[in-house]
């Protein structure tokens, strides 16, 4: 048994393999590019699916796209031209892809307007509301988790508050807030989207239940982090409990909370509709509901693709955030050799 004999019997794996490995070793940028690439793939699938669903739906395409609008020869001709229905299927598909890529989602024959303009004009109020609600949620979650983690009394108070918020439907919370702050105290406007103060109550109604869920996950993560050996090390440096929580604990706790937040924000966009109705706000939610009820297919398709875009963006963002939060996930940070 000769131990020094190095029988390297395989010069087989060619340069192709080594190039593949070099690419993978190319660190953070490659990792992020990969995530974005797979996101684009999902988007493409969503667009394709919407195209396929139009063609597979029972009945003829023209009446599907017209919805409840009166069918005249002029409208029919316009639709045939817009969707290229006289051309072969692959050409239709390609032109559909190109149109979507250029942000052209066709025309709503019920509302007599361009879908992309309609969506654009309505998405801004919804985004504003969502962003404000997210802000409320994060602030609530952070404060509740940092102040209550691992402390018996604050923990049960925060727990009870969160349970109440989670189990209250946000329209009911909205009505309560309206009653208290608008009708009785007259601090905020009752409805509309004219000023910043009109955003406060809807954001609270939408954001607080969300913050309650995130807060619970964040607190659990924080408590787990504070039990880790490194927490003892940090305390032994003379670091204060508050700094330990903010500087060390939160980052560990953020990992699961970020995933959850990504999913919840995605659902906010569709969940916003009730809050928008309660507070009489314009927004994408209302447009969607009306389109679905009126069988306004072009608008429904645009919203479907848009919501796919939102989910893909959010989940890519979550992945990138993960890499930023936890250096151990970055592929370029392999263990160094002594």
């Amino acid at each position, binding site marked *: *048994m000769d*131990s*020094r*004999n*190095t*029988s390297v*019997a*395989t010069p087989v*794996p060619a340069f192709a*393999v*080594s190039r593949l*490995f070099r690419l993978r070793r190319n660190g953070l940028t490659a990792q992020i590019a990969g995530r974005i690439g797979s996101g684009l793939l999902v988007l493409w699938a969503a667009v394709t699916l919407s195209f396929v669903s139009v063609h597979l739906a029972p009945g003829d395409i023209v009446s599907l796209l017209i919805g409840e609008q009166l069918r005249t020869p002029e409208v029919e001709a316009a639709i045939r031209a817009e969707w290229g229905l006289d051309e072969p299927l692959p050409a239709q598909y390609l032109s559909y892809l190109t149109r979507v890529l250029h942000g052209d989602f066709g025309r709503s024959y019920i509302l007599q307007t361009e879908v992309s303009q309609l969506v654009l004009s309505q998405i801004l109020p919804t985004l504003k509301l969502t962003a404000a609600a997210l802000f409320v949620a994060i602030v609530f979650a952070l404060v509740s988790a940092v102040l209550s983690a691992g402390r018996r009394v604050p923990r049960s108070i925060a727990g009870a508050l969160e349970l109440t918020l989670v189990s209250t439907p946000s329209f009911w919370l909205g009505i309560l807030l309206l009653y208290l702050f608008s009708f009785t105290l007259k601090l905020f406007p009752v409805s509309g989207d004219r000023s910043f103060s009109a955003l406060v109550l809807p954001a609270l109604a939408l954001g607080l239940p969300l913050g309650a869920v995130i807060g619970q996950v964040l607190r659990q993560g924080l408590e787990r982090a504070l039990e*880790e*050996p*490194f927490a*003892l*090390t*940090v*305390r*032994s*440096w*003379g*670091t*204060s*409990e508050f*700094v330990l929580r903010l*500087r*060390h604990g939160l*980052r*560990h706790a953020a990992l699961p909370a970020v995933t959850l937040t990504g999913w919840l924000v995605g659902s906010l966009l569709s969940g916003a509709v009730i809050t928008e109705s309660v507070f009489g706000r314009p927004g994408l939610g209302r447009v969607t509901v009306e389109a679905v009820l009126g069988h306004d297919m072009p608008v429904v398709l645009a919203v479907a693709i848009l919501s796919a875009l939102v989910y893909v963006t959010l989940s890519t963002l979550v992945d990138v955030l993960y890499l930023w*939060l*936890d*250096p*151990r996930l970055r592929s370029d*940070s*392999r*263990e*160094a*050799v*002594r």
Partner: protein
Amino acid sequence: MTPLVDIRDLTIAFPHGRQDNRVVHGIDLTIHEGETVALVGESGSGKSVTARTLIGLSAGVVGASRFDIAGDSTLGFRERDWRRLRGTKIGFVLQDALVSLDPLRTVSQQLSDAFGHPGYFGRRDGREESSALLLSVGIPDPERRLPQYPHQLSGGLRQRALIATAIARQPSLLIADEPTTALDATVQKQILDLLAERKQAGHTLLLISHDLAVVARLADRVLVMKQGRIVEQGPTKQILTQPTHPYTRQLLDAVPSASSRGFRLSPATQSETDAPALPAAPVQRRLPLPPKRIDATQRVLSARGLVKRYGVDSFAVNNVSFELAAGEALGIVGESGSGKTTVAKMVLGLVEPDSGTVLVDGQPWSHRSEAERRARRAGMQLIAQDALSSFDPRYTVEKIVGESLDTVGVFGRDRRQRVVEVLDAVRLGPDLLHRYPRELSGGQRQRVAIARAFAPRPKLLIADEPVSALDVSVQAQVLDLLAELQAASGTALLFISHDLGVIHHLTDRVLVMKDGRTVETGAVETVFAAPAHSYTRALLDAVPALP
């Protein structure tokens, strides 16, 4: 001169409901400036919680008639007062820097935290300070290490960085709680050298360990702790050479080494981990182990030219060959990353070798389909390092051990009988049958793992670091059990460990691995008495020894 630490009648309790749950029962602890004191005992003895009490972080109810640190009484201390003392008067080092440093922050960030610099607001640049500190704990090229994260450092550098954070504000006393327990022998030696340097420079040190051999070199004074009491204390040399308390003797005997070969490490009559103290009467110091039955004509396992690559040009295992006869014990020794676990995986058929073959009982084993191998699986059993995670937490002991009998077709009453039988062989009573893994002590868990491995009467046993997570005294019992059962059953044993003392004690032949290659192989006595390779010599030198 006033001592640095002067504690009288210290009690620590973790009250739960009406129960007092005292873990430390009135101990005295005095540490003078420039002294190195060691607190030794097994887990649960109260040594770690005592150490944490010194920085006000024990989480228990602490009582003392006197508790002075650097001349100040801490008896009325509030959290704020303790915080001022931490890091400046007393520094604290835990084991395993991989989890004892914040894995999400860089070395430089953590040093700045330890210096007490404001982190986010009005950051002061402590780069030079940090570099100098890293150099002083023997980290070469500190500029390169500062922006790195703990997981990017090697085990040795990581532990040094942890020590650096503890001494950042030049505390008068450094407490090291099992500072080398998770480390390889050579790295352990480096860290002990570093601590020895500090001792030479006149710094005060409190060492906490379960291993007398580790503290033997450094400590001026040793306190032996058992179940919350100090049972013996005195100058290190006296404790090591003339122990008066039977427990101290038991701890000393438990250290496996060349001289313990062929003898038991633990007292023979002991059947339970938490047995009461031994009779004080002088017992015969080493009881012999039963003789082994090696049948050299019967080859249970042959590995020929095993190669496992990862990536294109890196080798996890590079041309490793060995043979194992019935009843024989082969030790594979090497540090982390040497490829020894990959070898075990290839033998187990969990990883296919890129080239080379494994033969079991003379029949081809590698590169076969799992369906073909399954019938022969029962003849080969594994004992893993972490017994707890190798059990289904929702299974009882009976199910855990019984499951290994599936493959040999033993069911019903026969199964129950065999389970009780093997549990008895590892000295666990039938009262444990319905317990869950979490309800067992560390030593009991590893016994259950051994019972499970022996239950289907395997021809070959693969043990991957089976004792490295255990205290010395528990390790002693487990090693004795393994040796006894192996001798009685004639099972071949492939024993993987980073601990040369254990290998020397237990195995017949040894294979030393480094970077995936075989460095040296041969009979244990020959290799360890006259190592041919410089790496083997370095490994042997690194082993902390009792005088």
